[in-house]
């Protein structure tokens, strides 16, 4: 049963990520990415990461993808793009990495069964969100603050970049 769910999610994730690259219309690509995000969230649920599944749906599907669709519709694109001239090089790189992945799976693919939970980690027994918050606000407090700083910088940067007349614009008008 577990394996059935995994195969379903894996099939849809791999298929829709191929469609993201293959569609000519950017809106179709974005919608295929939406399907992929939802199935990744489902995969997180099967991995007992319920909080991340919710965050995946809210942040990725709710915020990031809406931003993409907003920009695609704002720019009003003609769909005239073909594939890039350098596609033979892309094929070489992709084939090399694919062969490497297959070889690694072939040689080292059998992992030992998961290790028993250690005593030190305060994960078991707590809910997923509770455990995550516990670790995030104690061990990873400083990276958490840095992440908020990154978001602030990104916000200011996006405003500065997308504003129409900034720098050199007359101030007196």
């Amino acid at each position: 049963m577990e394996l059935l769910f995994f195969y379903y999610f894996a099939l849809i994730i791999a298929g829709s990520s191929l469609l993201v690259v293959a569609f000519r219309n950017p809106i179709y690509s974005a919608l295929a990415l939406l399907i992929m995000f939802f199935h990744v969230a489902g995969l997180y649920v099967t991995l007992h990461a319920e909080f991340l599944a919710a965050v995946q749906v809210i942040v990725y599907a709710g915020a990031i993808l809406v931003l993409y669709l907003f920009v695609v519709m704002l720019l009003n694109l003609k769909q005239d793009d073909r594939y890039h001239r350098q596609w033979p090089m892309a094929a070489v790189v992709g084939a090399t990495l694919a062969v490497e992945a297959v070889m690694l799976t072939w040689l080292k693919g059998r992992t030992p069964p998961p290790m028993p939970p250690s005593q030190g980690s305060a994960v078991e027994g707590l809910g997923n969100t509770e455990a995550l918050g516990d670790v995030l606000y104690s061990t990873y407090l400083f990276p958490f603050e840095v992440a908020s700083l990154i978001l602030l910088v990104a916000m200011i940067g996006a405003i500065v970049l997308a504003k129409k007349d900034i720098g050199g614009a007359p101030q007196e008008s």
Partner: protein
Amino acid sequence: MIPLSYYLTLSAVVFLTGIVGVLIRRNIIIILLSVELMLNATNINFVAFSQYFHNVAGQVFVFFALTVAAAEVAVGLAIVIALHRAKATINVDEFQLLKW
């Protein structure tokens, strides 16, 4: 219990798709979407290892990757809008000012 290697294989497939998408497409927006694919592939890896080692730190790192993805999208799309305003196209072949 699903073996860890299944998740790693799935993640490798998605990551490869993202790399090929970045290399062969000429539309900047599709390139950014392919970068999102690659970030999601790493996130799948993080969560699978977090479950495997019974350590919640992997999920914390997914949280940070999510933050970086959001920042990347905001700045990247602002750059796309600025480029579109400058050259009225989002085809990457047109942006060759630094090429000699």
